[in-house]
């Protein structure tokens, strides 16, 4: 009997290798794209892996920044400047860049994001999410941590954005020199300085 146990182990290894080879052969030539949505199982697996890896103390850390209008505004300005290019001003992710990467930027107004703890949101903003487009924004400074906690306050506010806030964010979104020039050309034209076509 003693000889069968190692033999069984070898059979299990051989079967596992054969299945891996089979899967690889089946997937070969299947193509790649970043323009797709994760399958539900894929997303669930990624989320639970993330939850598993974030230390308990970090997950349970309370937000030291109170939800004052000032803190939310500070978070909003920061978000418009650094985050909206991928996440959109309203946090929906419905913007060219966020939609075209895999995994795509999630709709942060949804239950999936809102059910994360303040500590988890803080943790992923500070440290990023490996193998995704989400960069790490933390630098270890107290001031940096404070502004990340403000971002967390703003993410909680995403569901209640007003039109006025949306417009304010548009003014705060980064613009390239070409954008600036175009905006100036338009102002000049409308105020009567540009060439008129009649």
């Amino acid at each position: 009997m003693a000889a069968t146990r190692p033999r069984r182990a070898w059979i299990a290894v051989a079967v596992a290798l054969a299945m891996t080879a089979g899967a690889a052969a089946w997937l070969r030539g299947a193509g790649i794209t970043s323009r797709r949505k994760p399958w539900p199982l894929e997303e669930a697996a990624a989320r639970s892996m993330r939850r598993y890896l974030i230390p308990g103390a970090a997950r349970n850390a309370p937000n030291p920044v109170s939800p004052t209008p000032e803190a939310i505004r500070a978070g909003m300005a920061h978000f418009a400047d650094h985050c909206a290019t991928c996440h959109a001003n309203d946090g929906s992710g419905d913007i060219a860049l966020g939609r075209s990467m895999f995994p795509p930027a999630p709709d942060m107004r949804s239950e999936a994001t809102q059910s994360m703890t303040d500590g988890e949101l803080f943790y992923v903003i500070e440290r990023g999410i490996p193998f995704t487009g989400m960069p790490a924004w933390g630098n270890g400074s107290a001031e940096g941590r404070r502004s990340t906690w403000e971002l967390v306050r703003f993410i909680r506010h995403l569901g209640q954005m007003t039109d006025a806030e949306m417009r304010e964010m548009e003014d705060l979104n980064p613009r390239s020199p070409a954008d600036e020039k175009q905006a100036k050309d338009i102002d000049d034209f409308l105020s009567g300085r540009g060439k008129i076509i009649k």
Partner: protein
Amino acid sequence: MRAIAAVVVSAVVMAVAGTAVMAHPMTYKGTVVSVAEASLQVKAMDDMTKKESTMTFKVNDKTKIYRGETLVAFAAAKVQKDERIVVTVNMDESPDAALEIRLAAAK
């Protein structure tokens, strides 16, 4: 460090976003020829061909209309014949639907 990271990320993002997003919009600067309930005719120069022509743009509920800095409804904008206008469209999706209309501030 945060500032450096932010600048690097912004630069990359803007370079990518620039090609992904900026290639699609087209902006026409011109004058209003006529105004209808849900469209307007504009005489403008085509940037590519450098020819003047009169074009009709549809205005729908997605069109953002600015009178000066103020976002207004199409009717409230009171667009006047012969006034200067700037119309932005998305060439890929619908080249004849106005995404954004800009008008000088009311006097």
